[in-house]
């Protein structure tokens, strides 16, 4: 219900202004088109809307965005940020329809998976972000894959870890995804309800090779078929936190942030990257077409603020995810954790599927996964 009274932990007003100033200075030196925007921002800013609407995921996700990005944005600009908790999947057709029908889209900024964001970019409903002043500082991972320019910007990486209830594993962390098949976990295993993040891990756990994705995914489906016999629970982000809390499950493939949330709520939960590896992916921010010009400007400024160093530090620290600004300080509990990748070696241990492959094939994987699970 996004009613948060916690104190501001995010970037301070000073940080916001500083990052903006540095960017403006850099742009002036380089003489890029960003200079124009930078100048306009100081000379004649477009009229400020009273609020902008940012679509967000609930639970720990919206808390992190609010404390890390939105509050400091409001402080710096005076523009209120409203978080819309509509599902990412549900906002997508709404935006697509709005753009197709020349209507004002229902939100100003979409916080999306990079795969879904890329689909929207391909469909041509995203605004160009290439004039944002903070883009030039970002790590390569921030750049959209399989797209021209910057219709979207990736904001952090995350790993689909193997999360487990520590009581169920007295001898330490499970080594392999295969523990999900142990009879004692029948009915106590959980996955995302379309299997997102799990297909590549299942491919390796089922004896297949990452390089065979997407050509030959038979090992993945074989593994998932065996898992079906375990009567897994299928849900969304908050379900995992909930299920661990309510004692419904012992093992799950979920994003680290959900397991960390349960742990911080006092539930004995831990996570690991099994020997087969775990899928790493990114989320993105983008601004839909069709907004009034001044609102589009401030929506883009929100995105620019979200990728500034101060906001990145606060936002991704709360999520427990590595951001896209160089030199961020990892949260104390995650430094050195293989599920918090920062170096090339870290990423090499994980399974990375190129976004264009996901865009083209993920829907087939979802359908096949559903087919097995609903059978």
């Amino acid at each position, binding site marked *: 219900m996004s009613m948060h009274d916690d104190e501001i932990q995010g970037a301070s007003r000073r940080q916001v202004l500083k990052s903006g100033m540095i960017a403006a200075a850099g742009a002036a030196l380089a003489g890029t088109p960003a200079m124009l925007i930078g100048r306009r921002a100081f000379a004649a800013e477009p009229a400020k809307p009273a609020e902008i609407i940012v679509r967000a995921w609930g639970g720990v996700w919206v808390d992190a965005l609010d404390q890390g990005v939105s509050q400091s944005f409001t402080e710096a600009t005076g523009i209120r940020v409203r978080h819309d908790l509509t599902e990412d999947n549900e906002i*997508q057709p709404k935006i697509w329809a709005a753009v197709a029908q020349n209507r004002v889209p229902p939100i100003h900024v979409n916080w999306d998976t990079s795969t879904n964001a890329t689909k*929207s970019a391909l469909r041509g409903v995203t605004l160009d972000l290439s004039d944002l002043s903070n883009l030039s500082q970002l790590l390569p991972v921030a750049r959209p894959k399989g797209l021209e320019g910057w219709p979207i910007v990736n904001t952090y990486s995350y790993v689909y870890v193997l999360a487990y209830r520590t009581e169920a594993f007295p001898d330490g962390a499970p080594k392999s995804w295969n523990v999900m098949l142990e009879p004692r976990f029948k009915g106590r295993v959980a996955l995302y309800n379309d299997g997102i993040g799990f297909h590549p891990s299942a491919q390796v756990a089922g004896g297949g090779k990452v390089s065979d994705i997407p050509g030959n995914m038979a090992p993945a489906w074989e593994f998932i078929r065996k898992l079906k016999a375990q*009567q897994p629970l299928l849900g969304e982000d908050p379900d995992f936190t909930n299920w661990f809390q309510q004692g*419904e499950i012992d093992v799950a493939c979920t994003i680290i942030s959900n397991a960390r949330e349960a742990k911080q709520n006092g539930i004995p939960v831990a996570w690991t990257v099994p020997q087969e590896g775990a899928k790493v992916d990114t989320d993105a921010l983008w601004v839909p077409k069709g907004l009034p010009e001044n609102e589009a400007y401030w929506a883009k400024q929100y995105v620019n603020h979200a990728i500034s160093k101060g906001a990145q530090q606060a936002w991704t620290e709360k999520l427990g995810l590595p951001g896209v600004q160089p030199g961020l300080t990892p949260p104390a509990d995650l430094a050195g954790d293989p599920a918090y990748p920062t170096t090339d070696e870290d990423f090499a241990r994980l399974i990375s599927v190129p976004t264009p492959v996901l865009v083209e094939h993920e829907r087939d994987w*979802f359908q096949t996964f559903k*087919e097995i699970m*609903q*059978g």
Partner: protein
Amino acid sequence: MPRPSRTAYPLSWRLLDAAEAVVGAMRPKRPEIVVPALFLAPAILLVAVLVWGLAGMVGDSLHVLDTATFLPAAEASLGNYAQLADRPIYATVIRRSLVAGVIVTAATLLLAFPYAYVMVRTSSSGLRRLLLIGLFLPFFIGQVVRAYGWLIILGNKGIVNAAITALGFEPLKLIYTYETILFGLVQYMLPFAVLLIAPAITAISEEMEMAAASLGANWWRGFTTVVLPLARPGLIAAGVVVFTLTLTDFAIPNILGGGTNDFAANAIYDAFFRISDAGLGAALALVLTFIGSTIVGVILAIAGAGTLGLGGRAGK
């Protein structure tokens, strides 16, 4: 309600006279056709909003998705319908919804009829009030919150399992099963069914039942041979409502199903929202609508007119 008052020619009279005059002046040539049509027009127009929206989906369903642009393909084809036939998951979810429709309808009618009967026949107005309030209150907290209530009650650490483990037994898996969904649906449908059955029972005169009893029929025979047949209009109406709403339900399978017990509506949702395939979702929605409407048509044909108010006079 205009009623004659003591003062001469009150406003209501004059209004009424004006209305009569207007109606009289408009007196159509063939009132037996025009008047019913006028009565029905608003309802027909309201449903037309739905049909209008549906018509747009017919067009959508004829274009497969182009995954290069995530736009529908330009040329029309039956590709989406072919996909529905080819992928067994769609037959599975439709079958699952149909079976649930039958079971939930039977169970709901069985549970609703005695409730409606007691509510109508009891001589205690306090009891009647209690039963009415018991019916209406859960109505107001909605399907979603109620379903989550069941998760708390039936969960691994829920009240029921707490009682079971306190007695020294292993906890039972009571949520995220097909049976839980059916139970949740029955609970959700119960108030609708009672409300639709109660007026039918009210219409049965108590003397009729007494007559049956005085002729030596025991209560069970009186019940099954007198009360039930006379209450048929209500039972059919309730049955059709419960069946169609179950067939197309989304929330309860979604919340109580644990992800592996999807109904057809959940598959439609997935097509539209999870895989961004509006054409496929539209095709599935149309197929489900066709199946539902056909079944309702058959029920109406078999049960005959007069069951749902249609041709009520002829049915008497």
